[in-house]
């Protein structure tokens, strides 16, 4: 037979240590619950995915545009930047002759201006000059092409030096709206889930589950759905814009790929998505945890 004393005044700390819901167990229960309600969880996942993907398209577009505009307005390269190995020498060509030149960059005209010129007679150096000039021409062509495309899309006006492009107020508003819709949708879906599982929650409380266990279970479920949606959303949003930008501007996109910015934005996307799924689930989780077992059982036939 069990100990005689069946009720002990145990304080919160003792009970807190004795009553456990191991993380692995909470994880197990959450995953199984999600498997059963797969279709409804798809809606939640889809909502987050759309909102985060939308956010990522705006951010990624912004990142690419800034990178491309930066490239379009860049100073022409010189010396080693044009052809590896020439050191700080610069070359030009005219009437099938090659010259060693010195230049300076004139900010007013945005062009390289020659300051002196000397003809090259050495064959080897002529070969190098030929390659140099070709590379410089290629750069100029690429730049002009880029400027044309950018101005065609209204990103860069001809002859105007633009500062870094920001996110417009309309875009900000749209982002906030889509995130709010996603949060509300999550709360809705979670509330439905809680209502369906009244009896289950009440039973668990009868088995001795603390309020915190119940909260943990529902938060975990929401975080799972949120993470799945966020990952897909970030990747989707980024890929869409990446493909579109390459399609619009060509391989210069890859040359000027703003890696750090995009990674930062991606991180923001993850944080927001995660935060959203937690925020949306707080209300339903609290509602579930505060249920009295007797209310949960009262399913009148």
């Amino acid at each position, binding site marked *: *037979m069990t100990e005689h004393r069946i009720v002990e*005044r145990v304080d*919160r700390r003792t009970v807190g240590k004795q009553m456990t819901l191991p993380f692995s167990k909470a994880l197990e229960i959450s995953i199984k619950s999600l498997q059963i309600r797969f279709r409804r969880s798809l809606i939640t996942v889809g909502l987050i995915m759309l909102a985060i993907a939308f956010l990522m398209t705006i951010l990624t577009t912004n990142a690419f545009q800034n990178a491309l505009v930066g490239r379009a307005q860049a100073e022409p390269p010189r010396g080693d930047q044009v052809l590896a190995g020439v050191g700080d020498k610069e070359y030009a060509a005219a009437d099938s002759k090659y010259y060693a030149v010195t230049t300076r960059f004139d900010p007013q005209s945005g062009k390289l201006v020659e300051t002196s010129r000397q003809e090259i007679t050495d064959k080897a150096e002529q070969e190098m000059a030929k390659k140099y000039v070709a590379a410089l021409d290629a750069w100029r062509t690429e730049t002009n092409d880029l400027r044309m495309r950018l101005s065609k899309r209204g990103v860069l006006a001809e002859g105007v030096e633009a500062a870094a492009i920001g996110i417009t107020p309309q875009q900000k508003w749209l982002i906030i709206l889509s995130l709010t819709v996603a949060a509300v949708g999550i709360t809705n879906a979670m509330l439905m889930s809680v209502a369906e599982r009244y009896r*289950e929650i009440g039973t668990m409380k009868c088995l001795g589950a603390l309020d915190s266990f119940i909260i943990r279970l529902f938060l975990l479920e929401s975080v799972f759905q949120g993470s799945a949606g966020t990952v897909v959303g970030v990747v989707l949003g980024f890929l869409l814009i990446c493909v579109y930008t390459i399609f619009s501007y060509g391989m210069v996109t890859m040359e000027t790929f703003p890696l750090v910015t995009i990674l930062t934005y991606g991180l923001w996307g993850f944080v927001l998505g995660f935060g959203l799924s937690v925020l949306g689930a707080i209300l339903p989780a609290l509602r579930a945890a505060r249920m009295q077992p007797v209310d949960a059982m009262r399913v009148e036939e």
Partner: protein
Amino acid sequence: MAVSYIVRTVDVKKVYQMGKVEVLALRGINLEIEEGEYLSIMGPSGSGKSTLFNMIGGLDKPSTGRVYIDEVDIAQLDAYELAWLRCRKIGYIFQTFNIIPVMTALENVTLPMIFAGMTADESRDKGVELLKKVGLGDRVTHKPFELSGGQQQRVAIARAMANDPAIILADEPTGNLDLNTGQEIIGLLKQMNGESGVTIITATHDTKMLKASDRIVWIRDGMVDRIARGDELNIQVGTVDGSETGGVGAGAH
């Protein structure tokens, strides 16, 4: 010499507010339940039987009056202590079985053990033992939808016994079961009572429960109508077309 009373209610009253009307569900119950007893609470629907049952089980608090479990006033307990009580000392069995559908039988039985901090291995071994004891040794990994009503209730009984409780509270355990299965469940409860000395308190309509009970309490209109010992009753069972119907011969009142 005082018999140890595992549950004691002192003038318990419960009032519900239904809009403007006050409903007196319990109008002063005084009950003493002995340790190791098999007690049945009987009464028609609306008599306050379920309300009293919830009181005894710590699921609800009386409006006035006191409920003592092992001489501790449970109205004094906070949420943590109540959770501890429900986990370790009281096992619940419900009319609708209330097995968690996403978990297998074994996982259902071991859930209270996990809450109580048992390791996965220990709880698994003990869970299998318990399931064998209730006759489900071969259905350990079945999910609830793969089990019949009677089998689900057996899982519920095994789960109630998970942490070796002192009291088992069974709310209409045979309500959703047919005659034979119901009898099996009652037999199982009686077996638990005999083997481990756990106090069993049931709230029920089922007259089959009468033979198994040590004492029976009748509730009517929120008050104790009658208390009788099981062996005092003259229970007459008639048959209709080969199936049993139960009836209670009136003891002296």
